[in-house]
C-alpha cells in the first residue's frame, strides 16, 4: 500500500507540475482568470446589489444557488451524524464502577458522591449527575467561560449582520456561535449544554436555517421572478430592487448562520459523546 501510495502520488505530482509551466505568474494582474468573469463582479457589485463586500455579493447573490447547496451539504452532514451515531439509551455495558450506582457532584464543593441506584434520586440545584469520578471540575475555567461566552456570541451576531461590509457572513458567524456553545459544553459538561439547547430544537433549527434560504428563493419565484432573484422582493419590501437584493442577502445569511450553528453543535455533541449525549469530553 505504501509503495502504491508513493507511486500514485508521484505520478499526480508530476502531471500537475507539468502543467504549471503554462500558468500565468503568481500575482499576475492580467491573467485570464481575472479578465473574463470577475471584472463584472468587481465593477457592478455595488451598483447592482448595493453590497461593497464583493465576496458576499457573489456568494449570496450572483452564485447564491451554490451557497444554498453548500448549506444543504452542512445540513446533510448534521443529519448524517445524527443518523449514524445517535443511540437511544445506553447500548453498551456499564463499567464495574458505574454498576454500583450513580455519581452526583455537589457543585459548591466539587465533591463527588455515589449513590446506589435504588436508593434515592437527587433533584437539587446543588447536585448534578456525572458519569465517573474522573471527570474534572474546575471553577476557574467555568467562571472564565461564563464571562467569555456572551461576548463570543455577540461577536458572532456582528459577523453575520456586518457581512455585507466587512469580512464575514452567515457561515463564519454561525460557526462562531456554534463554537461558543461547544465551549460551554467543554467547560461545563455536555449535559448542561444540552439542557440549554436540546436536540429537538437543534434539529429543527438546522432544517429551519436552510429552509429560510430556500424559502426566500421560493418567495422570489412566487413574486414572479426567477428562483433566488432577490430583486423581486422589492414588491413586498418598502425599498427599491437594488436595496432589496442586499436585504435578501442578509436574510439568506441569517438562514445560513442558523443552520451552520445548529449543525456544528449537532456534530459536536454526537461525536464527543459517541451519540449517547452524556457527560461528553
Amino acid at each position, binding site marked *: 500500500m505504501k509503495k502504491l501510495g508513493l507511486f500514485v502520488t508521484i505520478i499526480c505530482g508530476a*502531471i*500537475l507540475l*507539468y*502543467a*504549471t*509551466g*503554462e*500558468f*500565468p505568474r503568481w500575482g499576475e494582474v492580467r*491573467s*485570464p*482568470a*481575472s*479578465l*473574463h*468573469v*470577475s471584472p*463584472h*463582479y468587481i465593477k457592478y457589485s455595488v451598483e447592482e446589489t448595493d453590497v461593497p463586500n464583493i465576496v458576499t455579493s457573489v456568494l449570496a*447573490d*450572483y*452564485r*447564491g*444557488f*451554490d451557497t444554498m*447547496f*453548500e448549506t*444543504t*451539504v452542512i*445540513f*446533510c*452532514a448534521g*443529519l*448524517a451524524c*445524527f*443518523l*449514524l451515531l*445517535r443511540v*437511544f439509551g445506553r447500548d453498551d455495558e456499564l463499567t464495574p464502577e458505574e454498576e454500583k450506582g450513580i455519581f452526583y457532584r455537589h457543585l459548591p464543593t466539587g465533591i463527588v458522591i455515589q449513590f446506589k441506584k435504588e436508593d434515592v434520586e437527587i433533584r437539587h440545584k446543588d447536585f448534578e449527575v456525572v458519569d465517573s469520578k474522573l471527570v474534572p471540575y474546575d471553577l476557574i475555567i467555568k467562571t472564565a467561560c461564563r464571562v467569555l461566552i456572551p461576548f463570543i456570541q455577540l461577536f458572532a451576531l456582528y459577523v453575520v449582520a456586518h457581512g455585507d461590509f466587512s469580512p464575514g457572513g452567515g457561515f463564519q458567524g454561525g460557526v462562531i456561535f456554534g463554537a461558543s456553545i461547544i465551549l460551554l459544553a467543554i467547560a461545563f459538561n455536555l449535559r448542561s449544554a444540552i439542557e440549554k439547547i436540546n436536540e*429537538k430544537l437543534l*434539529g*429543527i433549527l*438546522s*432544517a*429551519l436555517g*436552510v*429552509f429560510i434560504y*430556500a*424559502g426566500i*428563493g*421560493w418567495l422570489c*419565484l412566487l413574486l*414572479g*421572478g*426567477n*428562483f*433566488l*432573484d*432577490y*430583486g423581486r422582493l422589492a414588491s413586498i419590501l418598502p425599498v427599491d430592487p437594488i436595496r432589496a437584493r442586499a436585504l435578501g442577502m442578509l436574510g439568506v445569511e441569517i438562514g445560513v448562520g442558523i443552520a451552520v450553528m445548529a449543525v456544528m453543535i449537532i456534530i459536536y455533541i454526537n461525536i464527543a459523546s459517541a451519540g449517547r449525549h452524556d457527560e461528553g469530553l
Partner: protein
Amino acid sequence: MMTTDNVFAVLLVVTPLVCAFFVMGLHWVDRRWCYPLAVIANGISFISAVEILISVVKHGTIHYRLGGWRPPIGIEYRIDLLNAVVLVIVSTVALVNLFASYNDISRELPEKKGTFYSLYLLFLTGLLGVVVTGDLFNLYVLLEITSLSAYSQIALGDVRRGPFASLNYIFIGVIGASFYLLGVGYIYIMTGSLNMADVAHLLTRLHYSQAIFVAFIFCMVGVWIKMALFPLHIWLPNAYTYAPTASGRVIAPLMTKVMVYVMIRLMFTVFGITYLFKVVHISQFVVWLASVAIIYGGLMALSQNNLKKMLTYIIVSEIGYMVGGAWLGNKLGLTGAILHIINDAFMTFALFLAAGNFAYRLGELTLDNFNDIFSKMPWTMAGFVVAGLSIIGVPPTCGFFSKWYLLLGAFAARQYFFFVALILSSLVNAILFFRIFEKGLFGGGGHHVSVRGEIQEAPVNMIICLGLISVGLVVLGLYAGDIVNTFIIPFIPQGLG
C-alpha cells in the same frame, strides 16, 4: 428587466430539497407523515422531469437563469435532450424505489425512519442537480451532496461491514471529487469561466495547452473514480453490497449512470469532439480499459457466491459498456452508450429490486438459498428472469438493442477487442443468470428454512414495483427505435464519424 424561464427546471430540484427539511422537522412531530411527504416530493420531481422532457422535445433546449443573472455571471441551468432523459430516469427510479422500500425501511431502520427519508430526498436532490446544472462548480457542490448522503446511507447498512465500506468509499470519493475540482481549477485559471457553454467556447482556442490537457485528465479521472471504471472500482462492490436494501437499490443503478452522464457531458459539451478525438489521443487507451473492465467485471461476478455482490460486479462490467461506447468516437457508439444509460438504469434497478425481494424473505443471499425458488416466489422470479435476460441481451428486451448499437459502433471503429469483450460479456452473463435460473427450477428443496421462517412471496407493493419495471424493460426494448430517433439522434453532435 428579466422574464421568467421554465419554472419546472427549478421545481425539479428544489421541491425534494425543501421537503427534505420538512421531513426532518416532522420526524419530531409526527413520524407517520414523513413517508407520504417524501412520496409527494419525489412525485413532483417526476412530473417536472416529464414536463421538461416534453418541452425539450417540442421547443428545444431550456435555459434557466438562477437569480436572474445572465449565464457566465450567474449560474445557469441548461437542459437539452440528454439532461432531460437522464432526469426522467433518475426521478422514475427513485419514485418506484420509494414505493418498494416502505417495508424494508420499517424493518431495517425503524427508529430513524423520518431522518432516513430526509437523507433519501437529499440524495435525489443531489442527483437531479448534478444532471440539470450547466455550471462546472455547481456540479461539484451537488456531487458532494449526492456523495455525502450516499456515504451516510451506506454506513447505516450492515453493522459489521457497512461503516468500513462507507469509510473506504469516503476516502476514494473525496479523491475523485477533489480531482474533478482540481481539473475545474485548471480550466478556470486558463479561461476564467465556470459556465459549461462559455468554457466550451473559450477552449476552442486553447486546444494545444498543456494545462487544459491536465485539466481534462484530472476531470476524467475524477469522474472515473466516482463511477468506478475498472482499475478505480475497488470501493464499489463492498459499498453497494452492504448498504441498506432501500438505499442500495437506488444508489447502485443511479450513481454510476449519473456519473456516466457527467462524463459524456464533459466530453461532448465542454471539451468537444475535435479536442477528444483529434487533439488528445487517448481514446484507444480508454476503449481498451473499458474492454478490460467488461471482462474483469464478468469474471469477478462469476466467482461470487452472494447475489448482491455478483450484481455489483455486473455493474462494474456495465460501466465498461458505456465508457467504451462513448469513447468509440462514432455516432453508433455514442448512441449505444446513451441508450445503454437508459436501459442499464432500469435493468440494474430491476435486478436490485428482485434482490431486495429475495432478501426480504430469505435474509442471506448466497446462491444456495435459491434452490427451488421458482415455486416459492414465482412473481419475483419472473421479474428477475426478465431483468436477467435483458442484461444478457436477449432480443425483445431492451438490453439487446443498446448492445447491438455498441457492437455496430465497435465494428465501425475497428475496435475488435471491445467487440470481443462485449460478446464475451454476454456469454458470461448468460452463464451467471442461467446458473441461478437452473437452481431455482431444479435445485431440489434441500434446506429451505430461512431465518425468517417459511418462505413466501414478497409483499404486494414490492411485487408491483418489480413487475412495473420488468414490463418497462420489454416496452423500452419494443420502442428502442423510437427512443433513439426522438431522444438520442438529435443530441449527437455534428462531426462524429
